């Protein structure tokens, strides 16, 4: 009686969603064609998406109201060339009737989380951090412009159903430790290719203590371990978030089967984590913040799809309120969306940060990818709350980028060198 027909083996979250959207019994390793619920491009991938769409002689979008063009990576446009790209994208949106989020509208992944992603959706974006919406239980993944152009026109694409790694978390994060520290620890543990082609699926009793903002940070960084998606089950935290966003009708419970098949299981005790930093030039090159004490930092950047949410800005404001940034260390802060910006103004976080010497950017990607609003010079070092520290990412290839949590970033802005936030809290 050892026959174990695959019909009796439960499904992972990835297998469940792809089964539903493909109409097949989707199992790891299968190749399926799935319907896509939401598709988008942004201002650095949009122009090539549009030209591929036109090269294929497409004219109409499969679902104009489920297709979005975002202006966030270099918006408002910092130069003529990008202004031309922006114009091309606006014209495309007008012609095809797709949705548009223009200058000041915020970072695509934050807006997808706030307003568009639903549990169980398949979401494809021409941006690698599309994985962020996995926090809401959506199979969300990044693709290139050609793939996205075809999804624009056909409303579907092919997927290889990924094997899943189960990340089981227990306990609660300690004082001064944030979801970013968990993400960096995980990537440091499994490596920058530790989950290539695979799904990361989070579970365990520790999940109850991770707020939606935490989950968005963790799902966002799944791609830094090579993962196709970073999926969270849909639970009470998801329901409360959707209620808060006045989207209670979008809630539907979704979890993996208890007898699903995982390639590997990794246990993480949240209480054992400490403030963690990725050192140049790889995200998996991690160290503890306290081990890097004395590392001088020229610029601190708080924001992005990883850590530009209200909770992140609140954390920074709590550390910097009534104090001044180090005179040699610039502090740049970009709320991820207008909602975040407005809430941060209402709560007086923005006032506290401006008084501490911060430069506040409009909602958008800001300094993250070296296009505007904080480009680094050769020899400079930056502590950023973003997700990538590759050589040349933020400007000069001779610059050094460290990644850390908003708490570590704020503590570092205060002292001018990489600082464990617990020292200043």
């Amino acid at each position, binding site marked *: 009686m050892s026959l174990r027909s695959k019909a009796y083996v439960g499904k992972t979250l990835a297998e469940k969603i792809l089964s539903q959207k493909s109409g097949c019994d989707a199992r790891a390793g299968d190749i399926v064609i799935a319907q896509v619920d939401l598709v988008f491009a942004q201002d650095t991938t949009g*122009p090539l998406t549009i030209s591929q769409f036109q090269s294929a002689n497409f004219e109409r979008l499969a679902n104009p109201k489920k297709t979005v063009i975002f202006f966030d990576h270099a918006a408002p446009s910092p130069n003529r060339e990008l202004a031309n790209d922006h114009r091309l994208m606006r014209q495309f949106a007008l012609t095809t009737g797709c949705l548009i989020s223009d200058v000041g509208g915020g970072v695509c992944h934050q807006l997808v989380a706030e307003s568009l992603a639903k549990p169980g959706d398949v979401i494809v974006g021409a*941006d690698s951090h599309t994985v962020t919406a996995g926090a809401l239980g959506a199979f969300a993944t990044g*693709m*290139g412009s050609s793939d996205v152009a075809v999804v624009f026109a*056909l409303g579907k*694409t092919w997927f290889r159903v990924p094997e899943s790694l189960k990340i089981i978390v227990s306990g609660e994060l300690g004082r001064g430790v944030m979801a970013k520290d968990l993400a960096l620890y995980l990537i440091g543990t499994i490596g920058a290719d530790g989950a290539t082609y695979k799904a990361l699926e989070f579970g365990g009793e520790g999940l109850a203590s991770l707020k939606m903002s935490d989950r968005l940070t963790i799902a966002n960084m799944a791609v830094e371990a090579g993962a196709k998606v970073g999926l969270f089950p849909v639970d009470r935290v998801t329901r409360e978030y959707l209620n808060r966003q006045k989207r209670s009708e979008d809630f539907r419970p979704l979890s993996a089967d208890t007898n699903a098949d995982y390639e590997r299981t990794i246990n993480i005790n949240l209480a054992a984590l400490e403030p963690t930093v990725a050192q140049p030039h790889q995200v998996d090159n991690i160290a503890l913040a306290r081990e890097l004490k004395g590392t001088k930092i020229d610029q601190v950047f708080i924001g992005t799809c990883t850590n530009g949410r209200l909770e992140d800005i609140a954390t920074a404001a709590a550390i910097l309120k009534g104090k001044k940034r180090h005179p040699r260390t610039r502090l740049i802060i970009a709320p991820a969306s207008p909602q975040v910006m407005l809430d941060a103004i209402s709560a007086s976080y923005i006032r506290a940060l401006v008084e501490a010497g911060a430069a506040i950017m409009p909602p958008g990607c800001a300094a993250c*990818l070296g296009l505007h609003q904080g*480009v680094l010079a050769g020899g400079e070092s930056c502590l950023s709350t973003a997700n990538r520290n*590759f050589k*040349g990412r933020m400007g000069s290839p001779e610059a050094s980028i460290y990644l850390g949590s908003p708490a570590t970033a704020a503590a570092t802005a205060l002292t001018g060198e990489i600082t464990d936030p617990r020292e200043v809290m």
Partner: protein
Amino acid sequence: MLKGRAFKFGDNISTDHIIPGRFAYLRSNLPELAKHVMEDADPDFAAKVSKGDFIVGGSNFGLGSSREHAPLVIKMAGVSAILAKSVARIFFRNAINLGLPVLICDTDGICDGDELEVDLAGGTVYDKTSGQKFSFSQLPEVMLNILNKGGLVPYIQKYGDFKL
């Protein structure tokens, strides 16, 4: 049969090594953009590479951004295929979607400057310089069909849909 020289790189060559974000303003001016191919990994690459040559990476080649401009500028440089021990998934799909072969094989034995011959249909790499022969793993059928049609746009133009 593809023939050319190997340009050897290490592990974890990111899309920022291949074409950094700071050149995003050139993305609608591809001939200018292509002059910066691999610049942060080897500043002289664009000047040295010839039509037909190969990029040989280590593990996790192409990690990072979804920018399809990364395989696009490599293709524009005349590179006939990328060989690597492993490739990040978005880059992998993007390269195939542009008709640029990506071959997964053990690249440790290949040195910078080696003369290579690649038999795409036979699944083998012959390193003429060292005399070694390697085999590479076959692509999934859907990717092979897209590659054989010269990329996703010509594939969709021919079939109008995905064929599994």
